[in-house]
């Protein structure tokens, strides 16, 4: 019962966030993307974070949803 509650709360949270984002979008033309295209604005991990992500995935039980590898290779001492 508790499991089902937390799942429905998570689903509700995703729907709310997605709805808020959908209604607050304003169209941005290519020539207006100066700030969006800045290298620090990228929506993924940077190359320099590779070893960090690797040790976090070994030292912690959770992994994934960060646009990286989801398995393969042990390195798990």
């Amino acid at each position, binding site marked *: 019962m508790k499991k089902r509650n937390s799942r429905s709360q*998570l689903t509700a949270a*995703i729907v709310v*966030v*997605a709805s808020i*984002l959908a209604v*607050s*979008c*304003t*169209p*941005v033309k*290519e020539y*207006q*993307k*100066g*700030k*969006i295209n*800045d290298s*620090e*604005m*990228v*929506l*993924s991990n*940077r*190359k*320099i*974070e*590779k*070893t*960090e992500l*690797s*040790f*976090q995935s*070994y*030292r*912690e*039980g*959770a*992994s*994934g*949803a*960060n*646009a990286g*590898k*989801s*398995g*393969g*290779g*042990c*390195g*798990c*001492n």
Partner: protein
Amino acid sequence: MVLFQLRAQDIPVDSTGYKSRKLKVEEVNLVSSYYTQNGDHSAVTGGIGTQKLTDIANTIDVKMVKYGQTGIKHTFDIEAGIDHYTSASSDMIDLSANSSASSSDNRFYPSLTYLRENEQKGQTLGIGVSSSTEFDYQSFGGNISFSQKTKDRNGEFSARFQTFIDQLKLVKPDELRPGGEGYGSAGRNTFAGTLSYSQIINQRLQVLLVGDLISQNGYLSLPFHRVYFSDGTVHQEKMPDTRFKIPIGIRASYFMGDNIIIRAYYRYYTDSWDLKAHTADLEIPVKITQAFSLSPFYRYYSQSAAKYFKPYGGHSQSDEFYTSNYDLSKFNSSFVGMGLKLTPPDGIFGLKHWNTLEIRYGHYTRSNDLTSDIVSINIKYR
């Protein structure tokens, strides 16, 4: 280094929008890291004992691009990495040895990715292969991906499927290997599907929603992890042969004013071993000058214990599955540090195309007595 320098002199900087039909190096990244950790809960010695470990990692990533006659962009990404690590806990696979063969090892991991991008349609198809080799572990991976931009180019939907086919050498703790028997082997397979959607909200804000479904089967224990039962007997770790993981994340980047960027990330994770986790990450790059920026960051992580975890001496003969690996225990952790980025107009050390130098340091503390430090350096050619 000299090779790339010569190449850099050959190719004039393209400011006309001309798209080369020759294959040319677009970007090279050299990344090196030094990682060190210490703790008192090694799974090799049943949840007690040193976790001292050092790892030196070096990777080179070369991205090459060419345009086809129909304007299709072809990208080839070749990456190779090698790690050298020393591990005090691995050394304890043989309890009587002072420094055994397992006290250090190397890992080699090359990968190759090809992307075919139709810029007119905003559509990209990708395919990739990878491998990872250690003394007791061999992994082969493959992936395919597809992404489609929205009509107004403000949103992008992506789907990716990855698989890893792994083979482990079953290196048992020494006292569980009577008569010096040889190593057996076992397989482990991972299948991961990822869906993501990114959206530009306005001229300063963009967000990404991402979710994975990951299924693992095969030998999911580690053969050299000991578990001491309450009756004093010692056993090899034993875990179920399936695990199903669901991580869901949201990422946002916001450009505040002219010099400050806020990067935020949150992830919720749950799996079939009853492990649940929350991750929150905040990084604030500040552009001090046009060529120099500082990025302080903080990451908080918390997880519940996997249902098969108990500490040293906690398990009994009635348990079907058992581990004393503290990576699967209940804990929270903090990771704090700073990044530094230099992009001098004349290039690093006067080499024009080697135009970015990044250094990043982080300190990690876990509530069950594990600490670690990592320093990384990235030099980029473009």
